[in-house]
């Protein structure tokens, strides 16, 4: 019997990625109501609540009670409205932990079957990221159209195509950083019994440091300055400000450098944790 020559690793990985993305899509749309709730409505509530809080705050700050008059730390209410519109889009594109179940697979000893196959398990996880991003780009585009149709020019409209390209680049790179961080935390299940609370903590930090509760540039400097060195800021708050024209190309390049360095660091950390974890994995659940 003649041996069938194996394809190069990169080609195999790419073919596997394509197939796995297809299966991930099928899984997501299996329960239609659940699909609508999880993919379309998820993440809409928090920014809307934030808008009501800001309206009350700006009303209180203005002597006439007109929200349009006041400016708080260089932000007018109209800019906050655009920011919230941006949050609705950007938060959809930022990878969420609900797309992964790696820690459960490790805890219950189910990853064994993947480890014995001639494929890299991480490619299957990357397929989740790819499926998530493709799906959310469609959903975010739909949300943007609905928002623009509802409030017109008061909605976040990118100041230029360059700004749009820069903003989307930072969001997607930041989202990949979040994905790598979540994979790493999930992989801690090789040592810990349950990691969901760590994952929730990470999502708190990403939301807070990223500016999902209020724009980072509106925070006092003791909070804003350190946050500007972390990827969540460049994945959420900064891209919205770039789309609004409040930040320019110099900020984009700085963000690209910070996110690029952290992406490489997170990937190295993920590889390290995965290898150390596999070394103590016995395939029978932890």
């Amino acid at each position, binding site marked *: 019997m003649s041996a069938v020559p194996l394809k190069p690793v990169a080609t195999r990985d790419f073919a596997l990625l394509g197939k796995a993305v297809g299966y991930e899509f099928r899984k997501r749309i299996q329960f239609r109501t659940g699909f609508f709730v999880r993919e379309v409505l998820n993440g809409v509530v928090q920014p809307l*609540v934030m808008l009501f809080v800001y309206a009350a705050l700006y009303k209180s700050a203005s002597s006439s009670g007109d929200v349009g008059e006041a400016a708080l730390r260089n932000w007018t209410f109209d800019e906050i409205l655009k920011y919230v519109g941006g949050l609705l889009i950007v938060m959809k594109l930022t990878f969420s932990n609900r797309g992964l179940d790696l820690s459960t697979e490790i805890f219950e000893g189910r990853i064994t079957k993947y480890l014995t196959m001639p494929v890299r398990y991480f490619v299957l996880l990357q397929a989740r990221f790819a499926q998530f991003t493709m799906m959310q780009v469609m959903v975010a585009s739909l949300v943007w159209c609905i928002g623009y149709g509802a409030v017109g020019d008061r909605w976040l409209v990118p100041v230029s195509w360059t700004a749009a390209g820069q903003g989307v680049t930072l969001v997607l790179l930041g989202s990949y950083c979040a994905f790598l961080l979540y994979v790493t935390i999930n992989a801690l299940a090789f040592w810990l019994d349950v990691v969901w609370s760590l994952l929730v903590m990470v999502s708190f930090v990403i*939301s807070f440091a990223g500016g999902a509760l209020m724009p980072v540039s509106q925070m*006092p400097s003791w909070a804003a300055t350190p946050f500007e060195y972390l990827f969540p800021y460049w994945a959420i708050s900064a891209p919205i400000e770039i789309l609004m024209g409040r930040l320019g190309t110099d900020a984009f390049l700085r963000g690209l450098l910070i996110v690029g360095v952290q992406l490489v660091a997170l990937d190295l950390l993920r590889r390290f944790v995965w290898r150390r974890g596999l070394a103590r994995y016995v395939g029978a659940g932890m």
Partner: protein
Amino acid sequence: MGDEVKGMGLWSRLGWGLRVLRAYGRIGWVRKSQFRWEFVNQVVMDVMFYVSFILTFKMLYGLGADGESGALSLAGWSYAHMKVYLGMAFVSDALMMTFLGQQWHFGADLKNGALDSFRVRPGPTAFLYFFQRFSPEGLTNLAIAAGWLVYALSGVVGAEVPPLRLVWTLPLAIVVIAWTQVFMMMAYNLVELWLTHSDLGHLTWNLFSSMGERPLDVYPSGIQRFLTFIVPVAGLAWFPAALVLGKLSPTVAVVFPLVLLAFAWLVARVFRAGLRRYDSAMG
């Protein structure tokens, strides 16, 4: 409800419920002794939740230095009042985490037909099911949340709130929070009985709890009325905080408890109807 409990008097029924809760509590401590690292993680996680809220509101009120008036209020809530409001919201969240953690698994349990073992037990299915996961870490966070509430109240008692009023309003406020948590939680999960594995229970929880974590006065009057008289999220933090701070109008003070009772009756009826269509293979 199981026949055995149905035939009991009120006090016997209460005693039976407390015995079940004690048994669930014991199981909760045993379970957590197996997952000690997770205990620490969950305590830290909830403390981070509290800190992120406190910091956000501190920063928002801090913006007042840039405003024309120099001091900001959120629809009539000063920073001192807001601290009390956050205290009520934290206590409310910690109560839910301590006693009602099983609600997160309701959709999946329905899909997997895992409700059978609760339906055949001699007691109310909803009580036996939803209270089964007592959380020691939730109890620890309840102590932390209560600590914040006491600290926040110390800033207003005497100057704005007569101490005597606190003596009767605070226990009443905690009862309202606990009552609202139980029936709101059941209401969130009602829809799962008809739309299995839809995550609508989680979505409605996310929607209403997010709205309830801010004073209802920030919303337009229509939404305020909806969250007070139709889906009484107001009972989670707004009504208790306003009751203690003396910010309630006489009408709301009288009508809202009646709304809570009517809501609980309706939710219990619909939940029972939903359970009747559960056939242990809904997925």
